[in-house]
């Protein structure tokens, strides 16, 4: 237990909220009354002082200009009206502008956006709806890795043939080689070739790679250290392994679907657990496990605090 305990003093503080308005509308009403509409929004937020609404009993909701008090003479006899006009001018125009600003802040449309347009206004593309994001990340990565000599269009053609090959194959599940958790059941994969491809690649992707720290092991030898991989790099290694196997495979056919068929057959082999890529993954993980002890090496281990 520390010697200085601030909580005792803090507990005695009282935070009082104004009883007559909800926090948000109260703030708008207050600010609407005293701050000009051209003042920036940032300044409004910084204003932490609290002020009274124009007149008691009326709660300005910020959506419509406040209706004038029905019978001011009768209802507000006790308030000094001269001073109220000066300091609390019920300038509903300001309030209206501020309400509009507030609405814009909450992304509600306040203006007529179809004015001057023949058809309805097209939606703006979102952050990840740009031209470069038009393909799924896995499809994009595989396509780019299949590309040779910068012929992207040809690689895309291969990719579409691969996906259509996957549609027509029915893999048999292998309990010894389960797919990555979260992937759909094997029987359902052909209906969704993208999930098929993703499941195959993610299942054989290694989680770690071995990084060599030059000369740290002594005698000029590199100290092998396991290093976790981000998703994209993981997939990259898996795709490269699959491509290596595909390139060594004997071509059994000819024509435009020949390469795609070989690639698709390897994806099928991965899902069915027959592929040699599984062995490569196991080897990579084994090496990583062995090199795990090196993390305690003085060259890399965090120094103990004295």
């Amino acid at each position: 237990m520390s010697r200085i305990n601030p909580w005792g003093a803090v507990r005695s503080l009282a935070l009082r909220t104004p009883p007559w308005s909800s926090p948000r509308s109260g703030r708008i009403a207050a600010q609407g009354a005293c701050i000009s509409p051209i003042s920036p929004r940032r300044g409004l937020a910084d204003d932490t002082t609290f002020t009274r609404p124009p007149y008691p009993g009326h709660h300005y909701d910020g959506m419509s200009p406040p209706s004038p008090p029905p019978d001011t003479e009768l209802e507000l006899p006790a308030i000094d009206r001269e001073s109220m006009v000066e300091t609390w001018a019920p300038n509903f125009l300001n309030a209206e502008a501020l309400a509009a600003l507030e609405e814009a802040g909450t992304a509600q449309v306040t203006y007529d956006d179809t004015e001057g347009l023949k058809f309805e206004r097209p939606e703006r593309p979102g952050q990840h709806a740009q031209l470069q994001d038009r393909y799924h990340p896995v499809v994009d990565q595989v396509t780019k890795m299949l590309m040779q000599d910068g012929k992207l269009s040809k690689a895309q053609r291969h990719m579409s043939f691969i996906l259509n090959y996957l549609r027509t194959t029915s893999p048999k599940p292998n309990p010894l080689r389960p797919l990555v958790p979260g992937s759909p059941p094997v029987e359902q994969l052909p209906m969704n070739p993208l999930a098929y491809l993703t499941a195959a690649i993610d299942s054989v992707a290694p989680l770690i790679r071995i990084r060599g720290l030059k000369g740290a092991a002594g005698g000029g030898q590199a100290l092998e250290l396991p290093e976790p991989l981000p998703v994209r790099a993981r997939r990259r290694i898996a795709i490269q392994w699959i491509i290596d196997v595909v390139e060594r495979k004997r071509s059994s056919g000819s024509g435009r679907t020949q390469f795609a068929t070989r690639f698709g057959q390897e994806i099928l082999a991965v899902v069915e657990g027959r592929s040699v890529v599984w062995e490569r993954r196991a080897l990579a993980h084994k090496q990583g496990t062995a090199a795990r002890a090196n993390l305690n090496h003085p060259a890399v281990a965090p120094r103990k605090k004295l």
Partner: protein
Amino acid sequence: MASTNCWRCLARPTQRLLGPASIIPSVTPASITASITAAFSTSALLAAAPAKSSETGMSRHIRIGKKLVLGKKKKPTEKKKSPAAGERKAFRKRITLSNDNAIEVRGLPEFTAERVVDLESAGLVTKIPVELVDQLRACEAFKASQNWKLFRSPHMLIREETVELAKQMTEAVDKKETLRMVITGDRGSGKSILGLQALATGFMNKWIVINIPEGLELTTAITDYSQVPNSDLFAHPTYTIKLMQAIYATNLPILSQHRVQKDHLHLPIAVSRGMPLSSMLNQSKEPEFAWPILQAFWQELLLPGRPPVLFSLDGLAHVMRVSEYRSPSFELIHSHDLGLVRLFTDALGGKTAFPNGGVVLGVTSKGNAPLLPSMDLALVQAAAEQAKREAPEAAADIEVPERDPFYRRYDDRVFDALKGVRVFHVQGLSRPEARALMEYWAASGIVRLRIDEKTVTEKWTIAGAGIIGEMERSALYDIRL
């Protein structure tokens, strides 16, 4: 500068021992030799090293028998079994008509002879009956580049063009006339599928259907050929046997009902009157006998009282030019001098009379098609003349294009073969048809989109106003899944 002398014993190194004898003549005085050799050169020492290594008691760091090998070591290459003869081509040409993973679309009507001539059924996706699938497969109407392999069972869309074509065909056959027609259109607009639908119409109406699936196979010198004795023609013996077998397989129920009526004494096989017409086709598998038998069969078919004939050829451009075959005098053979092609072009040009009614259908192809000014002009002329015939009141306004007077390589035989044909121009789908097709794709589980006005219009527009091949590219071959 370092001295060449030994710094311990003051002895001078003997150049004769270190360097090769051929470079340093023995008569050269030692002082001159020393001035020739660069003082800092190590090449002499290196050259001497192997001689030292053979001695015993050397220091450990010099390894004996290890030589520097420059360049990469060649790995012993694994001997892989090369594909068997024809295996690679079989892979390329394999036709798959079903996909067990696709969802079966139930409740679609079947393709029938009545439905195909009914304009109400335009925009209907129909199921191809199993027997018809077998017939179409036997006559090679399905192509590997078409997308049959994605769907559970073969279905096809009846378009307005299909109905129009089927109507023209059946009307001509009913009147015992000959419809001579060439199907043209943009790339990917569905010409071959329309040809397939014409064949299906023929099968459904119980006509005799003869189909040459690729004109290219007849003229690009990939099929064996031989000269026909006592004639200027050349035959394709093996191809003709295959064609006869296909005709037999597809038309057996009809052909077996008809009997041979003529005497074919010149034939190498025994053909007697009264035997079924079908047995003419399967009696011999000898390639040498194929051409005369096919000719005799063709004569039998054209006798009165036989069923109507549908003769179709895909890839018309390839049979409208000089082939790549050579005659014995090593001159290129014109395609129309090949027996099978002559049979087709005579029928298409109107030289063959079909007393029982007939349809001769040439389907052009835009993939891998040669540029043929003669054929293009002949088709444009035929289309203009057809327009004149159809609208006699406006005939004066329609201009039939003339030959270019400065082009001298026009082929008159092509003009003869295409004289008076009807030209059927295929264009894009209409939007309701596109919608029906896309709904079928979605119901099969291939296209994972909500099929509404927006998607249909989008694909239809991307596909150049409903060019069906482009629609398939943007929907079935999309990697944006």
